[in-house]
Structure formats: structure tokens, C-alpha cells
């Protein structure tokens, strides 16, 4: 089997993030030839797609679920859906449709959030929605440069709050899109974003936050 070229970051992400935002880790351009082979049911093409996207999917699932077992199941279910429904994907290469990675990411996000909903973790997030005007524009504290500390702080957040933070900041979704994905309102997304930012700041630099 001829080796496919190394995946490259896509110039056309979906949804389009603002220029100052980093590209999603999903933003990998998949060659049309590879997609064609996968649509024809070629096992090697399936594996190639899996290898390219397993890490972004697993990372997203870990951020949303916060649990390795759960994230593993999200990864498997996502990939099974993608590979068995790849014939349904028609948006690639026509210049206007969703890129393949956006389609795959949507499946991954839906799968992870569906599991989150099924576990009724959202009940813990039924809090007032009036916080979003407080501090969601403030920059992160310097301690956020420590990736390990930031990862530990993220892990301590409630799953819905962490999900909103990740979808908004790392994947570039808007509040409206997050509200649709989570079957909540945009206000919920904004409040969770504000709440999460404040808690992250508190966890990263407790002395500063209390000052």
C-alpha cells in the first residue's frame, strides 16, 4: 500500500476560528484519495484515518469526560461511526462543504456530550447564568503556562464546565454552537465559561485569586 502523505494542518477549519485562536488539533487535511479508498472499504485506509485522528479524538474525549475509560469508549464509538458512515460524507473537496476533520470532530463531540448527558452530569451544573459578564475576558494567570498545572486544574472542574471551556477555547466553537451541542442555552455556555475561567484562575494561583 503506498504510504499516504503526512497530514497537514488544514487552512480551512470549521467553524472558522478567529485569527488569534489556535487551530483545532483536528484540523488535518485528509487527501481525497484516502477518503476514496476508505469509502471503498479498504482496511488500510481505515487504519490510516484512525491513526491520524485517534489522538485529537481521545484528547477531546478526555477533556469532556475526564475519565480514561470513558474517553476510550468515546474514541472507539466515534471511530466506528466515522468508518462505517464514511460513505455518507460528501463535503470534502467541493470548496464549500465541511472538511472531513470537521465532520469527524462533530461526531466525536456529539458522542462525548451524549455520554455526558446520559450520565446526568449536567445536573451539577444547574447554577445561575448571570456570571458571564464578570471576568471571561481576563487573561489567564502566568501559572497557566505550566501545562501540567493547567491540566490538573482542568481535571478538577465539573465536566460541563470543562467541556464548555474546551469547546470554546481549544476548538473554537461559539456560544451558540456550544448551546446547540449541549442542548442548553447560550447563556448557559457563557456562564459556564465565566465560572470555569474563574475557577481555573483560583486553582492555578490561589494566593492571587484571594488577594
Amino acid at each position, binding site marked *: *500500500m503506498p504510504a499516504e502523505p503526512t497530514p497537514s494542518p488544514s487552512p480551512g477549519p470549521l467553524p472558522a476560528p478567529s485569527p*488569534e*485562536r*489556535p487551530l483545532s*488539533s483536528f484540523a488535518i487535511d485528509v487527501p481525497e484519495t484516502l477518503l476514496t479508498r476508505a469509502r*471503498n*472499504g*479498504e*482496511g*488500510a485506509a*481505515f*487504519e490510516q484515518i*484512525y*491513526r491520524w485522528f*485517534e*489522538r*485529537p*479524538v*481521545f*484528547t477531546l474525549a*478526555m477533556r469532556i469526560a475526564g475519565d*480514561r*475509560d*470513558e*474517553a*476510550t*469508549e468515546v*474514541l*472507539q464509538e466515534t*471511530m*466506528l461511526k466515522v*468508518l*462505517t458512515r464514511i460513505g455518507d460524507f460528501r463535503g470534502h473537496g467541493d470548496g464549500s462543504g465541511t472538511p472531513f476533520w470537521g465532520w469527524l470532530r462533530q461526531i466525536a463531540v456529539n458522542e462525548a456530550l451524549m455520554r455526558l448527558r446520559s450520565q446526568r452530569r449536567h445536573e451539577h451544573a444547574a447554577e445561575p447564568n448571570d456570571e458571564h459578564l464578570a471576568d471571561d475576558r481576563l*487573561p*489567564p*494567570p*502566568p*501559572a*497557566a*503556562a*505550566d*501545562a501540567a498545572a*493547567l*491540566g490538573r486544574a*482542568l481535571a478538577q472542574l465539573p465536566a460541563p464546565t470543562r467541556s464548555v*471551556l*474546551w469547546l470554546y*477555547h*481549544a476548538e*473554537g466553537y461559539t456560544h451558540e454552537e456550544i448551546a446547540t451541542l449541549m442542548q442548553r442555552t447560550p447563556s448557559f455556555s457563557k456562564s459556564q465559561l465565566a465560572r470555569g*475561567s474563574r475557577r*481555573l484562575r483560583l486553582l492555578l494561583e490561589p494566593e492571587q485569586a484571594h488577594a
Partner: protein
Amino acid sequence: MPDRNLPDPRGAAPQDWPSAFARLPAETPPADGWAQVAARLAAAANATPPASDTASPAPPATGRTTATRRYVPHRRRWAMAAMLAAALPLAWWLSQRGADPVTPATQPAQVVHSQSPAPDRAIADPLLSPSTQASPDPDKLADTGERNTDRATEPAIATAPNPSSDANAPAPRTVKPQRDPSPATRERQAPTRLAVNEAAPTPQTPASDDSDAIAQRIGELQAQSAQLEALIAASRDDRVASATAAVMSSELDQRLGLIDATLISAPLPASQRLSLWQQRVGTLRALAGVESTQRWFAAQGERYDDALVRVD
């Protein structure tokens, strides 16, 4: 803190949360994730009704696990346990098979299947009937060799008398000639076919069972293929692979890829698909042997390369 005003050893502070999140390292997924997905894809394909089997053959898995550490979600452990339980008798049978000089007399009939033309119509319908799957006729006959184009009047081809054991244990010896579809190979198979006829002089049934037998046989081969893939996934470990063994595995993987490419290239006649699935099972069996032998030598503290050249 006294060092609060010192430069941050972690680097420049991120300007915003997206930048901070972008610095987080990606999580590492389980090493055997692809093997599990591939096994589930194969299982799903095997469970698919034959109509789709004709249109799109089962997506084969050629994945390699990159580590032996098996990370299994608690909800999947039962499935993995069932898969391994199904694979263990196969591994035992393979080990016994190497020492058994006698090939089951029913296996050569598969070669005859692979060489005999069959109409496309004979592919799907038999598998739709649960009765043919549930109660295969053990009295289906040995192939008499030559066939007419009129399938309604010709005798049924031979099938294994015991489908359950056949599903787990096709003879490697019968698979090898199928990789070579040359006329010389077919000629070499002719005496075997005669031996089959002598070994199973049972009465003949109408030719309508021919398509049943082929479809049933393909289903059995697909089940074997899934079992072997699971076995390979469980036994593969790149950390113990030597260069020689890696080349052997790679060649077998490449052969699998060629078979899969042929299977998916276009809807094929039933006989050709049967032949390809037999070749696939044979190649997978060889691959399972290579992988398990590597693991065995690694467990014994030996190298596969040494075993290849040792003559004692």
C-alpha cells in the same frame, strides 16, 4: 514568595486561554485501540446480511498493536474475554495441527469450490435463510469435479460435514495452493479432489444447495477471519519483533492487502469470493503463526532470527 518577581521558568505566560490550552499536551490513547476497532468492524461486517456482503465485503483489519499493554474499558472486558476465549481453542488447534500429519478429507473440497465458477445470483439468497445457517446439511456431497453451466441439474459441491469445527480449523495445507491459481496448481489439485470423492461417497443433492454451501462457507470463513484477526491483535507486539520477523509479517500484511483490494474492487462471483476468503484465512493463519512464534521466543528469551537458522 521571594522568587515571585523572577522570570517564570515555565516560559512566557499565555496571552489568553486558547493559547494556554494549546500548550497542553495531547492525551495518549490506548495502544490497542485500532485492534479493537478493527475487530469490531470485522464483527459488524460478519453480522451484516449477505446482501451487503455481496456489495461490500467485510472491511478487513490489518492493524498492528504497538504495545502489549492491553487497556480495556470495563464495559468491553466481557467482549474481550469472549474474543480471547474463542481464540484459545483456535491457538490450541493450530499447535496440534502442526504435529498432525493427517489432513481432514473434507478440506480439499474447498479448493474445488474456489476453482469452480458460480453465478452471481448464488451469493446472497442462501445466507438470508436462517435455516441454512442454523442447520447445514451434513450430507452435502463431494464434488464430482466437472460442472455444467446449468446449475439446476448439477450436483452440489462438497462442504465440510462439521461446520462448527470447520469454522475454527481450516487446513493450512489446502489454503496454500489457492494462492497460486495457475493451471498447474489446478492439476495438482485434481488427485485431491478424487480422494475427496472416494472418501465421501454420499448421495448427491440438487444443485440448489450449491449456492447455500458457498454462502455458508463464506460465512464460516468470515468468522474464522475475525477470530484470527483477534488472535493476531492479541499476540502482536512490535517491541519483540526482529527485522526478519517484521519483514515476514509485512509481507503477509501486504498479501492481505492485495486480497482485500481484490475483494472490494467489484462484486465478484461467489466462487471467486470464496477462494479469496479462503486465501485470506490462510494468510491470517500464517500471520498468527509468525506473531505467536515471535512472542513465544521472546518469552523464552530467544530471538526469532536465531530460530530461523537453527538446525538442531
